[in-house]
C-alpha cells in the first residue's frame, strides 16, 4: 500500500516534468510546477507512515503515531510552493497585458 503511494508521487513528479518540457502554454507550465510540487510533498508525507499508526495528535488515540516530522516539513513546503505559484500567476497577468498571448513561442522579447 505504501509502495502505491510512493509510485503515485513519482508518477506525479514525472507528469509535471514532461508537461513543463513539452507544453508551450504559460498556465500549463505553472500547473506543471504545481503537480511536481504535489508529487514531492506526497513522497515526503508518505515516508513518515508507520503501519497501524494514528495521526500524531495529543492525546494519542492508538498505540503508535506516524512520524510528525515529515508532516511539518510538508506544511513549510506548501507555504513556499504557494508563494511561488502566486508570484508566477501575477507575472503571467503582466505578460498577458503586454503581449496579449500566453503562448511561449509568441513571447520572444528576450531572445538572442
Amino acid at each position, binding site marked *: 500500500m505504501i509502495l502505491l503511494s510512493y509510485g503515485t508521487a513519482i508518477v506525479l*513528479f514525472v507528469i509535471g516534468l514532461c508537461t*513543463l518540457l513539452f507544453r508551450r502554454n*504559460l498556465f500549463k*507550465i505553472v500547473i506543471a*510546477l504545481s503537480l*511536481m*510540487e504535489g508529487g*514531492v510533498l506526497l*513522497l*515526503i508525507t508518505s*515516508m513518515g507512515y508507520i503501519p497501524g499508526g494514528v495521526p500524531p495528535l495529543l492525546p494519542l488515540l492508538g498505540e503508535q503515531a506516524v512520524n510528525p*516530522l*515529515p508532516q511539518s*516539513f510538508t506544511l*513549510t*513546503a506548501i507555504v*513556499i510552493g504557494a*508563494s*511561488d505559484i502566486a*508570484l*508566477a500567476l501575477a*507575472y*503571467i497577468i*503582466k*505578460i498577458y497585458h*503586454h503581449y496579449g498571448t500566453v503562448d511561449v513561442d509568441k*513571447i520572444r*522579447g*528576450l531572445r538572442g
Partner: protein
Amino acid sequence: MNPVFAVLLPLCTAFLIPLGFIFFRRALPLLVFSGGFFSALGAGAVAFLGWGGISTVMGGWAPELGIALKVDSLSACFLLLTSLGFPLALLSSAEEFGWHSWRFYVIFFLSWASTNGILVAGDIFNLFVFFEIFSVAAYLLVSFPASSWQAVEASFKYLIFGTLGALFILLGISYIFMATGQLNMALLQDFFPALPGPTLGVIAGCLLGGLLVKCGSAPAHFWLPDAHSSARAPVSALLSGVLVKAPLYALLRLGTLFFLSPLPRFFPLLLFFGTLSLGVGHLMAMQQEKIKRMLAYSTVAQIGTILLGLGCASSLGATASIYHVFTHMSSKMGLFLVAGVFLEDRHANSLGEMKGFLRHRPFFTIAFALLAASLAGIPPLSGFQSKWLLLLACVEKGYLIPALFLLGGTLISTAYYLKVLGAFCSPAEAPLPHRRPRPLVQGAVLFLVLLSLLLAVLPLLPGGKELLFSLPPEGMLP
C-alpha cells in the same frame, strides 16, 4: 557569538522598513542605512568570531530535532563576501531608486537575510527553506520596478527555472531523509558511506541538478543572461556579484561533506559542467552587442571557472575557487555599476552607441578598464592570480582539457573587453549629453577597484598565502 545574528539583523530591518515608512517617513534613509550598517557589522562579527568554527542548536533541542546553525572558515569567508557586497549594492540602489520605493528595500533586506541564512544553516531542510526565501526575493528584485516588461519576462523565466531547481533539491532532501532519517549535516556525514550505491547516485543527481539550475551553469543557464541583464544596474551587480555565489557555496559544502569518499564520481561531473559553461559563456559573450547581456554571459563563464576549482576536489582547487569568488565579486559588481551609469547617460544599451565615454566620464572608464583587465586575467591583477591557482589545481589533478579551456577563455574575454574599451575610447559623434553626478556609485566603484587591487597583493603580503590556504576548513578536503 551566536550565528543567528547574521540572519536576524537584516530580517528585523526588512520588517521595520514598512513601519518606518508609515510613521517616520523622514527617517527612512537613516533606518535603511543604519540597518545595512548593523547587518554588515553583525555578519562580519559572526565571520571573524566563527572563523575557528561555531555550531549551535536553536531553542535548546537535540541536534536531530532543533534548527542547527554552523559557521566555519568556509561559511565565514562567504559571510564576508555578503557583508561587502550587500552594502555596496545598497548604496548604489539608494542613488538609483530614491526613497519612494520602500518595497525595494524590504525585498533587498529579505534577500540579505536569506543569503546569510544559507551560509549559516546547519541542516539541509533549513538550507532549502532559506534557498526558497532567497529565490523569491531574487525574482522580485529582478522585476523591480514591475513596469518594465523585459524585467517581468526575465523574472518569470527565472521563477520557472528556479522553482524547477528547488523541487529537485527538495526531492534530493526527501530521499536523504528516507534513507537516513536525519537532516543535520554534521550527523549525516557519518551515514553516507553506509548507503548503497544507487541511493547515493539518485541523491547526488537530484542535488547536483537542482543546484546547477539554481547557479545558472551551462545546460540550464538560459534564465541567467535575461535576469542579470534586464534588472536595474545595482540589482544586476548584486545578482552577479553575490547572489549567484550562494548555490556555489551549497555545492561546495554538500559535495565535500557527503560525496567526497562515498561517491568520487560526483566531482568529475562538476568539472564537466564547469568546462561546458566556461566555453558556452565566453563564446556567447563574444557575440553580444548589448553591454549588460555581455557581462551576464561572462558571469556564466565565471561560474564555470569557479566550478572547475570545486571539481578538482582538492584543497588547492577549493582555495582557488574561493579566491576567484572574491575576484569575480569585486570586478563584476564594478562592471555592472559602470554599465548602469552608461545606460542612464545614453539611454542606450548597445556597443555602437557608447562612443566618447572616456571624455564624458573618465573615472568610470578607467575603473571599467582596470576591472575588466582583472576579470580577463591580465597579470599581475587579481583575476590572473586566481586563474593561475585554478590552472595549477587542474594540472595537479591531471585535468588538461579544462585547463586549456581556461586559457582559451582568457583570450576570448580579453577580446570582448577590448571591443568595449575600444568603443569607450573612440571620439563621440554627437554632443555629450548632460551628466548627473553619481557620488555614491562612484564611491562604490572606487571601493571595488581598491578591493580588487588588495586581492591582487594579498598572496604577496606576509601571511597572506597562509591565510588564503586556510580558507577551506581543516580536514574538509584531502
